[in-house]
Each structure stands twice: as C-alpha cells, then as structure tokens.
C-alpha cells in the first residue's frame, strides 16, 4: 500500500481508479481520462495534488541560501507573492528536482515533486551548514489544483469574500496567504487556474463543495496529457539527475547574472555552454494513426538519433504527440520506431496547446 493523501477515501467514493505515483496511491481517473482532459480545457476541473511537498524556508539567510541552492535567482522576486520556477542542480549540473518558489511574508515557500520530496530535503539539509536558515516540511497541508478557463470564476463563488477578491486580483504566477489558505495562480495544464494549499482537515470539505458545484474531479492521467500538450517537463521523464537544464528547455530558468552568484552546478553549466549544448527537447506530432511512447527511438536524417521522453495521445489534437530529446541541429521531419516500423513525424516547438488553442 502506498502513501495516501487526506482525500483518499473521497477519491474512492467518487469512483477513482487508483495508480501508484511515486509511492502514492493517487486517482488515475474517475471514469474517462479523455473526458477529464476535455473538461479542463473547456471548463475546469479539480486535482488533488497533496502528494507534492511544501517546504517553507525561513531565517535571516534564506535568500542567500536559495541563491546558492537554485539555478534560478530568487533575487528576481521583487515583491511578496511573486513566484519563480527553478531547477535545483547537483555539482554536475544534473537536475535534483524542479520546483516553484514563492516569496512570502515569512521567507520563501517551495513546492517540490511528490517522488523526490525525501531526496530534496536530504539534499537541502546537506547544504545548510553555515547558513542561518530553517526548513519546515509542511506535511500537514493539502494541495488542490483547480485548472481551466472558468476555474477562477467558479472558485470565487465558493469561497469567502476576502479569498474571492484575492483570486480576482492575483496575477499569473503569484501566490498569497489568506487566513490559513495559500492561494496561487499557477498550474501544470497550460490553462488559467489556481493551486490552493490549505490545512488537510479542510481539504475534503472544500473538495466536496467544488464537486457539489459541478466541478469535475480530474485524475493524474489527464494531468499528464494536459501538461504534455502544454509542453511542460515531468520530473523522471524529461528531467532527472542525468540531464542538465540546458538540454531540457530550461535554459531560461538559469539566471547567469549576476556573474558572481555561485549556485550549485554553475561551473558545470558554464563548461557545458562553452563546449556547446548537444541536444534539446522538441515536440513531435504523429500524422498517422498510432501512439508515440516514452523511450521510442527518433531518427533525423543526416542529423542523428534521439529518444522520446514522454509520448501519448493528445485528446485536444486527436493525434499522438511526444516530447523528445534530439541532437541540437534537429530538422522539421523525423521518424520514430514503433514496434519495429518507422513512422514519419513532424518536429515542432514543444508547446502543442495553450489556453484551449492548438499551436501546431
């Protein structure tokens, strides 16, 4: 038996089919993964993402410590509530994890991946010495994501006036505390929406309120196809300790300036940049029938070979899409080997769908 979120029994009552995700028993879907996907693109849906870890960072040296720990620069966070996306690297430039960092009244709030939480905490603790920093793993909190074009409007109707006002005024990639809720305008679907971090004991009743208001629960299956269409990396698929952010479409998250900011992995990334970045993540679109899957081989004429990191059927596009790591030179066309046969694919920018619209 895996770990369970506070909403586990509610998922069962709602008919969830369960799946193991990073040691957690999580809902894969509640009936149809494809319908849930459409629901989020067209209206909105709720995800239980309480398996993700919330880590609060406080202490007088929280800022210089995070500037050392992370490849992105928390110095860029100009005012309370702003968020940034960053990789946490090892000294080789490999990605220990990716996360969102919020600047809060008390310091910083980090939201890291489910399967990597224990590893991340061990890594962070191993790099604490010499810093006046205190880490608090907020395991008592639950986290719900409400995503889709109507998410903010519908949630605004279900919460207190103060929270509704905050939801109305939050800009994209901002998060603020309101009472014992932390409400952020962030997500992992390519749609507008919210992520709400709240006490576990309030999560079930709020989830129930949302379902009662006609908002569909959405499983991790649709979460995966939504993030794939949005071209977002998934830790363990596109990124892990074997790859650097520079070959993972995360170059924009590496803050090179100020040049004297000595973050872990910096020397390795600079060496990689000097040597020349070898590969990149691209999008693939299969024009024929079939389904692209992770680890299938990609062949680009006169360029070389690559590999699919995530592949699935795109419910929005009604065809199969994938993210693949290919040689930097790449091309407009490639071929993918599926069960011994080579299928032609189109190579595209790895953002397939945003705000309900096909981009390819």
């Amino acid at each position: 038996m895996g770990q369970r979120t506070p909403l586990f029994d509610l998922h069962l009552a709602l008919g969830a089919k369960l799946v193991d995700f990073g040691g957690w028993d999580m809902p894969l879907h509640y009936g149809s993964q494809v319908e849930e996907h459409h629901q989020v693109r067209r209206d909105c849906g709720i995800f239980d993402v309480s398996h993700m870890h919330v880590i609060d960072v406080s202490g007088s040296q929280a800022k210089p410590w995070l500037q050392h720990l992370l490849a992105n620069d928390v110095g860029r966070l100009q005012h309370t509530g702003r968020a940034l996306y960053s990789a946490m690297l090892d000294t080789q430039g490999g990605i220990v994890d990716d996360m969102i960092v919020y600047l809060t009244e008390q310091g910083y709030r980090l939201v890291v991946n489910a399967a990597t939480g224990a590893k991340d905490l061990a890594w962070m603790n191993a790099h604490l010495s010499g810093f006046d920093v205190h880490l608090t793993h907020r395991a008592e909190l639950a986290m719900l994501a409400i995503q889709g074009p109507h998410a903010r409007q519908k949630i605004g109707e279900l919460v207190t006036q103060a929270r509704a006002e905050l939801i109305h005024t939050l800009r994209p990639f901002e998060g603020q505390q309101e009472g014992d809720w932390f409400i952020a305008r962030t997500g992992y679907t390519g749609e507008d929406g919210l992520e709400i971090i709240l006490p576990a004991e309030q999560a079930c009743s709020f989830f129930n309120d949302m379902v009662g208001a006609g908002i569909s629960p959405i499983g991790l299956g649709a979460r995966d196809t939504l993030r794939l269409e949005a071209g977002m990396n998934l830790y363990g698929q596109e990124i892990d300790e074997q790859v650097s952010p520079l070959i993972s479409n995360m170059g924009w998250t590496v803050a090179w300036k100020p040049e004297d900011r000595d973050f872990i992995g910096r020397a390795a990334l600079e060496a990689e940049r000097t040597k020349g970045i070898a590969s990149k993540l691209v999008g693939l679109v299969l024009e024929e029938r079939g389904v692209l899957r992770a680890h299938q081989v990609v062949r680009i004429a006169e360029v070389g070979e690559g590999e699919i990191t995530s592949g699935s059927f795109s419910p929005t596009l009604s065809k199969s899409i994938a993210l693949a790591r290919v040689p930097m030179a790449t091309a407009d066309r490639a071929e993918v080997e599926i069960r011994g046969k080579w299928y032609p694919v189109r190579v595209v920018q790895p953002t397939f769908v945003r705000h309900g619209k096909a981009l390819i």
Partner: protein
Amino acid sequence: MSTIPAELRFAESHEWAKQEGDLIVVGISDHAQEALGDVVFVELPEIGKVFVAGDAAGVVESVKAASDIYSPVAGEVVEVNESLGETPEELNNSPYSSWIFKVKPSNADGDLAKLLDADAYKAAIGE
C-alpha cells in the same frame, strides 16, 4: 463489476472468442477495456496472417499504455474490423459487439475447449 456474456469463451489474457458459422470472432473483454482506459488506437492483424493459439495478433493502445492482443485460437485471419481505425473508442463503449478480427480456425473445438467459460473467467479476474 464487469459484464461477462455466458455464450463467450475467454482467454486468460482477456480476449473473448465466439463461434460464428465456421469462423471465430475475437475481441477484448469488458474487464480488459476497463483496465486499459480510453482506447485511442488499434493495430489490426494483417488479413491472411496465420496464428498459433496464443500468438500476438495486434495491439490495443489506450491513452495510458499499449497492450498486445493474442489470438485465442489457431488459424488464418480472414477479416479485420476496419471501423476501429476511425472509432477505437468502440472497444470501450461496447466491448462485446466491437470485434477486432475473425479467424478461420484450424482446430476450433480443441482451442475453444482450452479457453475459459464465463464462470471460470469471472473467477480468473476475481469477480
């Protein structure tokens, strides 16, 4: 709880087989389609292909994963359900009327006898 028609025979790998004249019609069980989730692609066998019972005959892909389909009987593929190309989700909607392929069997009685009846299949999937 899935549906298990009494007139069908089942492979432990979740295909159903039905005698139809001198042919055997093959599909996947309700239990199988439920476990697979939304089916988005079916790779059909080639007409004329000859299978031994238990040979991989095709692939059903859901959003989640690809799953091999095995021929429950030996014989030659004489017909495939081309309409699954356009509407693979029919395997979810009506697993027992959405057949995948038809085989001209070489040993129908012997092969069918080795398959599970509805009760035995029900027990095999723990229902």
